[in-house]
């Protein structure tokens, strides 16, 4: 893809040949584009930039939910947050969730995509089946699996003939949420992998075949390297989404923090502070901390990508 700067460099040279009025009109066509961007920027300013700034301001106050009697308290909220064992717990739970979900989903999505890619008949059917759970709302997926994990009459324990206290024991509760999440969201990454697999030029494989490479070699030397970019993308998207986990966890545990607080995630703790304990200032400070964390992950990825590109050239 050509860059904009290159195009503008070529254009004036060509423009010289045209009549001046036409050049002007053509140029005007691309001038003053501010109006195109204005509606989006208005919404963006109101619902992204302003809340961000407001959150920053609130994080230095002791604001409560009713909005009156707010006083400036400096860095107290941040000091308290960094000292709050429950916040670290919640962050730990979100991180633990991410650590379990990201590798599992990446591997599963890859395997499903390989399967769907290599079966010759009924491609649409496999795509439909593997992707379908992703179309459910998070709360429906959560309720469904809460029912499947139910002690006594839940299907999971029944089918496997076990008596695991899935949602009532702290060592299993987060695991149950992870399993639910895998089922629910693997379809998205699966589609990305499938699209990438279909994008690998067939002649590469044919050439390898002629060279006598077997299926395993073809996978290791062609498929996997060709999928490196998409894997990076899947992992990055999953990390960002998993750190923000909230919906399915609260739904499966009836909006509680789970057995012995074992499934309370960072987002949940922030919302609890803001809306259940009415501490808007404190919750804002945690939001800002979280924003910095997310931004760090996103920037780290960009940095990695750039390094790799430079290294490759």
């Amino acid at each position, binding site marked *: 893809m050509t860059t904009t700067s290159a195009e503008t460099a070529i254009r004036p040279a060509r423009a010289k040949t045209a009549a001046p009025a036409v050049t002007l009109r053509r140029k005007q066509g691309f001038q003053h584009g501010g109006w195109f961007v204005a509606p989006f920027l208005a919404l963006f300013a109101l619902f992204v930039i302003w809340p961000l700034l407001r959150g920053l301001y609130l994080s230095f106050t002791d604001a409560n939910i*009713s*909005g009156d009697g707010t006083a400036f308290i400096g860095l107290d909220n941040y000091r308290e947050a960094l000292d709050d064992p429950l916040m670290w717990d919640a962050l730990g739970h979100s991180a633990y969730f991410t650590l379990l979900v990201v590798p599992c989903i990446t591997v599963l999505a890859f395997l499903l995509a390989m399967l769907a890619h290599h079966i010759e008949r009924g491609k649409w059917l496999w795509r439909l089946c593997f992707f379908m759970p992703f179309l459910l709302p998070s709360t429906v997926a959560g309720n469904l699996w809460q029912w499947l994990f139910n002690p*006594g009459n839940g299907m999971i324990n029944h089918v496997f003939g076990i008596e*695991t206290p899935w949602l009532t024991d702290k060592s299993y509760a987060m695991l149950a949420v992870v399993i639910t999440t895998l089922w629910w969201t693997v379809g998205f990454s699966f589609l990305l992998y499938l699209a990438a697999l279909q994008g690998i030029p067939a002649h590469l494989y044919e050439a390898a075949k002629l060279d006598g490479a077997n299926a395993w070699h073809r996978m290791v030397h062609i498929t996997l390297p060709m999928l490196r970019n998409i894997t990076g993308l899947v992992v990055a998207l999953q990390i960002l989404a998993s750190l923000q986990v909230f919906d399915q966890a609260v739904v499966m545990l009836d909006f509680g*923090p789970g057995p012995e607080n074992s499934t309370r995630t960072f987002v949940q703790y922030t919302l609890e502070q803001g809306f*259940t304990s009415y501490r808007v200032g404190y919750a804002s400070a945690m939001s800002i901390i979280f924003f910095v964390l997310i931004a760090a992950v996103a920037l780290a990825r960009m940095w990695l990508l750039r390094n790799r590109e430079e290294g490759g050239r």
Partner: protein
Amino acid sequence: MGRPGLNRRQLLATAGGLAVAGSFGFAALGTGADALASDASTRVRYWNLFSGGDGYNMIAMLDAFRKDNPDIAVKDSTLQWGSPFYTKLAMAAAGNRAPDLGVMHLGRVTGFSPGRLLDPWDVGLLAKYGVREQDFNPELWKRATIGGKLYALPLDIHVQLCYYRKDVLEKAGLLGLDGRMVSPASVDEWFAMLKEAKKATKKGLQTIGLWHNDQNFQWWFFVAFYSQLGGTWFNDANTEVTFDTDKATQVLEFLRRHLTDGYANPGFGGGAGAEQFVNGAPFAWEGNWSVPVFDAAKVDYGAVPLPPVFGRQATHAESHSFVLPHQADRGGAANEGAHRLAAYVVKHALQWAAGGHIPAYTPTLSTAAYQKLEPQNEYVSAMNHQGTEPKVWFAGSTGILAQRVGPIVVSSTTGSARPDAVARRMRSTLAELLASKNPMDGRTAAQGGAVA
């Protein structure tokens, strides 16, 4: 694509356009689909948290009210019980979209910032609809009054109970001559009873369901037994923690023993306890709101306050009450309708008593109809020995206290922490909470964060 003819495409485009236009029109109206359908002159929006049997009783009482007051349209909404409900109510009040009438646990009223998120009741208006101060237990009325104004209109008292199956206990020889469960006077007697009951229980069922991994129930049970030992929380000025870790350890060990001795199955915490009871487990500790559930399941059962194993009676008690969530422009017909509705429900609480609750409106208690109710008459005495949480801003059903301390109690009962260590953690958590400021007014409990 490419195959569909132009006509089909046009059709789709037109349909899409209509959908978009319709949606925007609908959104511009700004109200829900339901509001469009209503045509009564006065509309009272009422939010409650009553589920299961309570939900059915409340709906029946509302239907009766609607029949008697056809000019008032009551729009009732049931939200998920617990902190989601309080969150929604607080957010609606803060966003100035509060309903006209709400329900709340009495213990939560202090922390819910009366004056900011709640509006006071018009006592004169209530009297006009037939509800007066002298019809209530004075203690209850006092708890509902803050700064001289009435912020909550009590509907009931509800307690934690020990449900027992008469059929199983009879086989085990644990029923007295009156056909009721014999009352244990000590921890050992209680476990001896469980031992007998276990022998008489069908295979595959646990002996007792006690919500061992539920932070709310475990906390309530803890409060009950800690009260039986005469334990206290804070001094009168709310400046010091007087929590007794030895007594607490005793209670925690007692709760834990149900699991270690094999009477409660670790796999059947939560609602599974009630399912087991219905299927034939001899005991279940549940709130009195399970009465209609077990009635409906046609179980032959009785219910007594939690057993006085530490020598004296006490069981955990809370209270449902009506509140007026804050509206900047409260007043007018909807407000009057809210007063009329609340007064009506409080006065017609016999139906409510069928849900197991003890009505707060005392004239109801002395009616013959109430005294005939089984098993309500077996535990009505619980009124006189309530174990309650401390009266501070962070207390109350599913409040901050329960949220913080509940999981700590659970960690002992399920065996992931030792009872004495847990008791010390409870004490330090209580100290932390006592020192913390109520976010709504920036004051600690000692500074008057609690005027209850």
